[in-house]
């Protein structure tokens, strides 16, 4: 007696082809306003990791819209990035020396130049990723390779903050603010170290 089989090899192939064709039709059908993502994304609620106390005088803010073009491990990336930066001074490391009875000398600590990615919408967009050695093959950049490119970009922009004189400008601004702050104390003579 011949065994009863719902899915023989031939039928299985036909069903498979029908399913693929149906899926292709659905995917290629003009979808209008259908912008639903094609992957499942799950996002957890924000978690407070740390709250740090500080007394930091921030005297300069930098906002930069730039592009990132870099090659890591033979793979290229081109992206647009918005960065926000600050130049600040840790006032808990401020040196205050008494000079005589009513004079003090204030020395600013070294500056902290910090650059972060902006939280404005669209602050990081990947335009292109390619394989430098095999341009016709699809390229995939890993998260750590992408992070390497981003770390280099931030380091380069931090160097530029010095080269463009932003840090010098920030120091002058911080000195001016401190002078104003401390001079509100009556009878106190302030001297700011360069």
């Amino acid at each position, binding site marked *: 007696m011949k065994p009863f089989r719902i899915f023989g090899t031939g039928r299985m192939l036909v069903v498979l082809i029908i399913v693929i064709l149906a899926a292709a039709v659905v995917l290629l059908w003009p979808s209008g306003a*259908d912008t639903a993502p094609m992957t499942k994304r*799950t996002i957890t609620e*924000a978690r407070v990791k740390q709250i740090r*106390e500080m007394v930091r005088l921030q005297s300069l803010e930098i906002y930069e819209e730039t592009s990132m073009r870099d090659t890591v491990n033979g793979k290229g990336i081109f992206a647009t990035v918005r960065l926000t930066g600050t130049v600040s001074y840790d006032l808990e490391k401020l040196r205050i020396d008494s000079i005589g009875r009513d004079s003090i000398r204030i020395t600013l600590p070294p500056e902290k130049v910090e650059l972060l990615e902006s939280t404005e919408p669209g602050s990081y967009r990947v335009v292109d990723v390619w394989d430098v050695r095999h341009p016709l093959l699809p390229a995939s950049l890993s998260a750590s390779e992408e992070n390497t490119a981003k770390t280099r970009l931030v380091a380069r922009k931090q160097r530029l903050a010095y080269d463009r004189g932003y840090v010098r400008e920030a120091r002058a601004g911080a000195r001016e603010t401190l002078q104003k702050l401390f001079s509100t104390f009556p009878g106190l003579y302030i001297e700011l170290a360069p």
Partner: protein
Amino acid sequence: MLSFLLLCGCRNSAPEADATAVPSVTDVRKVGKLVLAEMTVTKTGTIEDLKYSDATTLRQKGQAVLNSLKIGDRKGAYSYDTYLRAYIDLSQLPDNALNVDTAAHTASLRLPRIVTETAGRDPQLREEHYRVTGLRSDISAAERAQLKEEMNTMLRTEIEKNPRFSQALTEKGRQKITSYLTGLFSDYGYTLNVTFE
């Protein structure tokens, strides 16, 4: 075809570049902010292929059917930190903010109110988990960027709707500036009373 691909592969590889191609737009602003507290907020998100039960639109359902035919799994989890800050705008400090009684060795200081802002986020994403097997394609840089964008949108809404973030930061900032200034004045023999607008 294969030989053509190999031919393309034989061209000189470009050196590891480290340069920007498009001129940047830069804005530099002088400020006088006294930053008193910083909160690190972590957001975590995952990417995986759509299952039919998760699909809502026709296109998603079609994609889910195609996904079910592929062999393997495709899952990734990523996180990053965003920084919120509490600060006093020193340009709002009035000229008569400080009153000193040199005879009694006491002083009172009225500070502008503490405000909070989002300073920015880490450019780098932490890869918490990555498992792509079988015939599944790697999670691309564009997909990670899209996930980060969605996490950012959600975080902005959470911060806006939930005052616990700004309240906790403001309180920490208030405590910090009070203890810092009280200590500074006591070094010079003065007792300071700090109030806020």
